[in-house]
């Protein structure tokens, strides 16, 4: 984290500018689903580089292992078998944080500096500042962050921000044996995707395309899909992700309005007291009324 303290674009729960003197180029990871063989080298590399070991799970009868993201497994391969054009297709998607340009997690986070977005687009959790409320899970359009039962902190893919900061690619990219995972500037990755999509179209995948959803301002992890018209085929990849309007309302302008209203009310009450004074019952009136009361 300290490696990248001069190029912060957004910092959670912070209303003043963050250190942003240094400008870096926007980076992206490109996941070419069409050349992925599902070997899980990326999953292993992720555990190795970050030096985390997930608990040994159980065999659920399918390839997904572990069956879902966890606080230790920040990327998992999701396998789906579909019938398409008279044949079987095995669609294998590497799931993990998409590093949204407009991150719902960061918007929702109440702890200053627990979630950081660097100017290169990487969205990073700083677990030292994490309070474990799980608001990021509520804010995320992709269901990525996982709350650890061990320490009550939330974890997810860092896009190897520590490696990228010193100019090397993320661990998963380094491990990929087929070139299905690519890393570079966002522009380079778009160019590479264009080349891949043209190739796929020439092979009969008319709907091949790039998944870089505009609803979250684009992402810094992008997919090349054979069926870009139906992202849901890929183990439920969201077709049109965006920050939920409920989350936007909760952590948007309404919260400042509410905070302002509370302040105004306290001030208003105080000045009402100053201008009108308390409702008091004068001593004389009190005696008179008491006499009246006793007479009854």
């Amino acid at each position, binding site marked *: 984290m300290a490696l990248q303290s001069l190029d912060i674009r957004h910092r959670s*729960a912070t209303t003043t500018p963050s250190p942003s003197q240094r400008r870096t180029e926007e980076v992206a990871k490109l996941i070419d689903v069409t050349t992925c063989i599902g070997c899980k080298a990326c999953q292993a590399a992720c555990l190795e580089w970050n030096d985390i070991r997930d608990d040994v799970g159980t065999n659920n009868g399918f390839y997904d292992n572990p069956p879902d993201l966890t606080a230790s497994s920040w990327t998992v391969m999701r396998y789906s078998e579909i019938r398409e054009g008279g044949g079987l297709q095995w669609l294998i998607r590497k799931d993990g944080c998409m590093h949204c340009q407009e991150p719902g997690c960061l918007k929702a986070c109440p*702890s200053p500096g627990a979630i950081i977005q660097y100017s290169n687009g990487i969205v990073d959790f700083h677990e030292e500042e994490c309070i474990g409320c799980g608001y990021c899970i*509520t804010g995320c359009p992709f269901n990525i962050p996982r709350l650890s039962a061990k320490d*009550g902190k939330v974890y997810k893919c860092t896009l190897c921000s520590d490696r990228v900061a010193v100019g090397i690619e993320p661990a998963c990219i380094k491990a990929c044996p087929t070139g299905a995972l690519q890393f570079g500037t966002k522009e380079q990755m778009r160019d590479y995707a264009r080349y891949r999509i043209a190739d796929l179209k020439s092979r009969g995948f008319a709907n091949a395309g790039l998944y870089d959803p505009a609803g979250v301002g684009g992402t810094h992890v992008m997919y090349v899909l054979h069926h870009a018209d139906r992202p849901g085929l890929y183990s439920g990849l969201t077709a049109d992700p965006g920050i939920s309007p409920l989350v936007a309302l909760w952590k948007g302008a309404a919260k400042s309005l509410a905070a302002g209203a509370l302040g105004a*009310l306290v001030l208003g009450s105080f000045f*009402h007291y100053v201008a*009108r004074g308390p*409702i008091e019952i004068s001593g004389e009136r009190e005696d008179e009324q008491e006499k009246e009361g006793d007479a009854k």
Partner: protein
Amino acid sequence: MIGNSNDLTRHNAFERTNHWIVAVCFVLAALSGMSLFHPFFWPLSLLFGGGVWTRIIHPFIGLLLVASFVPMFVRFRGFNRMKPADWDWIKRVWEMAQRGDDRNMPPQEKYNGAQKLIFWAACAFFLLMAFTGLAMWRAYFTFPVTLVRFAVVIHAAIGAVFIVMIILHIYAAIWVRGTINAMLYGTVSRAWAKQHHKIWYRQMTER
């Protein structure tokens, strides 16, 4: 005992104690909740031992708050039935605030229209806050994310309205001299009762 022997008893020791337990829990829940609501209030989390402790204890304070309101609900609900005179009183609250005087207001029972309304609103708000709070309690519960998103919006919105209501409740008690005594020592003067709660005054003195 404070005050004179002619004073009228408004709240017994149990009711006062109960009220103050609810009040202290409310203030703690509000301060910790606000710190998680807007970055401006984040420093309030230091009162609770930092962000993590705030996150840990806020829901437990909330549970204690709702639980301690239950006996209050049982004891006070009978005195808080809304009647036409209460609505007349509420309609003229703004007029009263502008004049800075309540002498022309319609006679009231033990609690005035606004107090009754606050009582019922508090009942509804406590229920809503408890259920939405449980839905947000990630340390122990996992609910479908859409449900949680509705819960967080309702929890924040009702929380803000509730705090507004309680600020008004506190201000009213400060503004009307002699009122805080009713909750601190349990008694009010006869003149106070006659001016602010005439119907109750008659009930108490004609017996």
